[in-house]
C-alpha cells in the first residue's frame, strides 16, 4: 500500500490527544509535585501524595464502598444483561424490539434525570438510602452495557452448535457450560469490565442515591474538592486513569477477537 501523504490524520490525532489527555497529563505531573497548592510551581519529584493517599482512612473506606458496589452491580448486571441479550436476539417479536430500544435508551438518558427519578422512586418506597440503593441504581445502567456487548457477540454465534450439542447427547446444563458460555465469554467479560469501570466512575447518579456511611470514591473526591485537600485527588486520579486505561485496553482486545474463532 502506498503511504498516505496527507498531514490531516496526524493533526487530527494530535488535536484529540491535546484536547483529551493534556488535562490528565497536568494532573499526573502535579501528583508528583510535593507543593501544597497547584500552580505554586514545580518543587521536585515526590511520592508524598501517594503515601498520604494510602494512609487516608476515608479514602480507603470510600474505595471499599466503590469496590463493593462495582463488583456486586457488575455481577448482577452480567446475569441480567446476558439473559436480556438472549431474549432480544432469539425473539424478534414486538416486545423484544421495545426491550432493545429501552436498553439502548437507558445508555443515553441524562444521568441527572436517572438520579432524580431513582431518588424519588426510592423515597416513595420508603427505602433507606445507602449501599443497597446505590447498588440498585448501578445495576440499571450496568445491565444495559452488558446486554449491548453480549448482543454484539451473539451476532456471530452459530446456534446450530447448540443443536449439534443436543444431537451429540448433551443436556442443557452441559450445553450452557461447555458450548454457549465459552463462545460468548468475550462479550460477557468485555461487558463486565465496561460495567465495572462505569460503576466505579459514576458520580451523578450515585450522588443522588447515596446515604450516610455509603460514600463512594467519586462522591468522596467531589467532597474533597469542596472542603479538603485537593492535592491527594491528583494522586488518586492518576491511579484511576491507569486502571481505566488497562480496562479499556482489555475491553478493546476482547471485542476485536470477535471473528477470530468463527468459521
Amino acid at each position, binding site marked *: 500500500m502506498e503511504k498516505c501523504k496527507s498531514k490531516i490524520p496526524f493533526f487530527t490525532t494530535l488535536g484529540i490527544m491535546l484536547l483529551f489527555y493534556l488535562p490528565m497529563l497536568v494532573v499526573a505531573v502535579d501528583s508528583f509535585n510535593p507543593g501544597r497548592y497547584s500552580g505554586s510551581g514545580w518543587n521536585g519529584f515526590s511520592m508524598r501524595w501517594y503515601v498520604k493517599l494510602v494512609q487516608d482512612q476515608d479514602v480507603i473506606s470510600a474505595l471499599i464502598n466503590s469496590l463493593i458496589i462495582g463488583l456486586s452491580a457488575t455481577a448482577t448486571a452480567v446475569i441480567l444483561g446476558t439473559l436480556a441479550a438472549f431474549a432480544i436476539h432469539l425473539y424478534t417479536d414486538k416486545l423484544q424490539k421495545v426491550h432493545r430500544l429501552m436498553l439502548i435508551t437507558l445508555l443515553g438518558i441524562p444521568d441527572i434525570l436517572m438520579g432524580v427519578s431513582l431518588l424519588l422512586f426510592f423515597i416513595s418506597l420508603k427505602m433507606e438510602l445507602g449501599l443497597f440503593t446505590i447498588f440498585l441504581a448501578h445495576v440499571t445502567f450496568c445491565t444495559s452495557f452488558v446486554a449491548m456487548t453480549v448482543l454484539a457477540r451473539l451476532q456471530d454465534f452459530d446456534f446450530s452448535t447448540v443443536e449439534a450439542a*443436543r444431537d451429540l447427547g448433551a443436556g442443557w446444563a452441559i450445553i450452557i457450560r461447555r458450548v454457549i458460555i465459552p463462545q460468548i465469554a468475550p462479550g460477557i467479560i468485555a461487558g463486565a469490565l465496561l460495567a465495572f469501570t462505569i460503576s466505579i466512575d459514576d458520580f451523578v447518579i450515585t450522588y443522588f442515591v447515596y446515604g450516610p456511611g455509603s460514600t463512594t470514591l467519586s462522591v468522596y473526591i467531589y467532597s474533597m474538592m469542596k472542603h479538603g485537600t485537593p492535592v491527594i485527588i491528583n494522586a488518586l486520579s492518576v491511579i484511576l486513569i491507569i486502571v481505566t486505561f488497562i480496562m479499556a485496553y482489555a475491553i478493546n482486545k476482547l471485542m476485536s477477537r470477535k471473528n477470530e474463532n468463527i468459521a
Partner: protein
Amino acid sequence: MAGFLSFENISKKFGRQTVLSDVSFSVEKGKIFSLLGPSGCGKTTLLRICAGLESPDSGRVILDGKDITDLVPNDRPVNTVFQNYALFPHMTIWENIAFGPRVDKRPKQEIASEVEKYLEMIQMTSHAYKKPAQLSGGMRQRVALARALINHPQVLLLDEPLAALDLKLRQRMLVELDELHDKIGITFVYVTHDQSEAMSISDDVAVMNRGIIEQMGPPAEIYEAPKSSFVAAFIGDTNFFDGTVTEITDNDYSRVQLENMGNQQMLIFNDRRLNAGDGVHVSIRPEKIDISAEPPATDRKKNILKGHVEDIIYMGNSTKFWIRVGRQLISVQKQHSAFLLDQKPIRFWLAWHADNGYILDNYQDADRSLLPINVTEPQKPEKGHKQK
C-alpha cells in the same frame, strides 16, 4: 410398515404453513436413503424430526421397532452431520470429536483411544489440536462426520453435507462418503437438493415437493420412469408433450395425437388402462431422442418427427439441440455430434423408440417452470385434459 427406520403419517405445520403433509416411508437397514427436493419441500424438517430437533404435529417415527417420536435428541441412537457442520469453534478438533463420548461419560482412556481411532479414519491425526477455523471446508466436513460417528449411531443423518463445498471437492467427498458407508455399514439418511448427488450415492431416493413425497425408488427407476411432471422436470431434463389418445394399438402401446405440433402422432408405451379420447402428458428425456440430418430408417415402434433448428449449444461432453416442431420446442442432447455442428443443417429428423416416452400419472403445468426453457407457448386448458 416394515423397515428399519419408518416414518408413519408425519405431518408438520409452521404457523399456517404446512411443511409436511402425511408423509410415510421407510428405510432399509444399512442403506443410503436420500431425501431429494427443492428448498422448502420439507426434507430438512423431516430430518430434524428424525433427529429430535423438531417434533411432528402428528405421526410416528419408528427406529428398529421402537417408537422414538417423543424421545429428546440426547436419547436417540441417531447423529447428525449439519449443513454448515456446526463444529464448536472454541474447541480443538480433538475436543470436537471427543464431545459425544465425554457427555456420555465414557472412561478417559477409552475416549482417548477412540478419538485417535476416528482421527486416523478421517486422516486428520496431524490436525488434532487445530481449531475448526484453521481447517478447509473438506476437512471440517470430515471432522463433522467423525464427531457424529464416534457415538456409534444406528442412523447417520446428513443435512446437505456437501452444499458448502466447491464442485471438485464435492465429487471427491461423495466418493469418500460412499466408501465410509461401505466400511461402517450403518444406515444413512441423506438430505440434498442436488439430484446428481442423490443419484450417485443412494440406494433409494424419495423425491419431495411441497411437503409430500412425489416418488420413491432406486435412482434409475426415478430417472427412467418418472411418475409425475415434477419428478421428470426436477431430476435431469425432459420434454413434456401434451396429447390425446386416439387409438390403443395393442395391450402395450397406444397412439397419441399431439397438441401444438400440427397433425403429428406418437406411439407410446402404455402400462395403464387408457381409453381413446383420454388426455395424457408424456415425458421424454432429451438424450433418448436420436437426431440426424438424414431421414432415419423407419421402424414400427419408432416415432419420427421433422423440425427446424432453433439453437445449438455445445457443452463439451455433449451438445444440446433445440428443435422446433410446430409450436413445440424439443430439447435433444447428443454426444459425438461434431458433424452436425460443422454442417449446420437447419432441418433435422428426430427419432425415438416408443418405450422411451412415459405417461405421467400426475401432471402440473407449474412444473414446466423447472425446465430451462418453457417448451410450449402458453395455452388455455382444454376439455380433454384429464389427469390420470
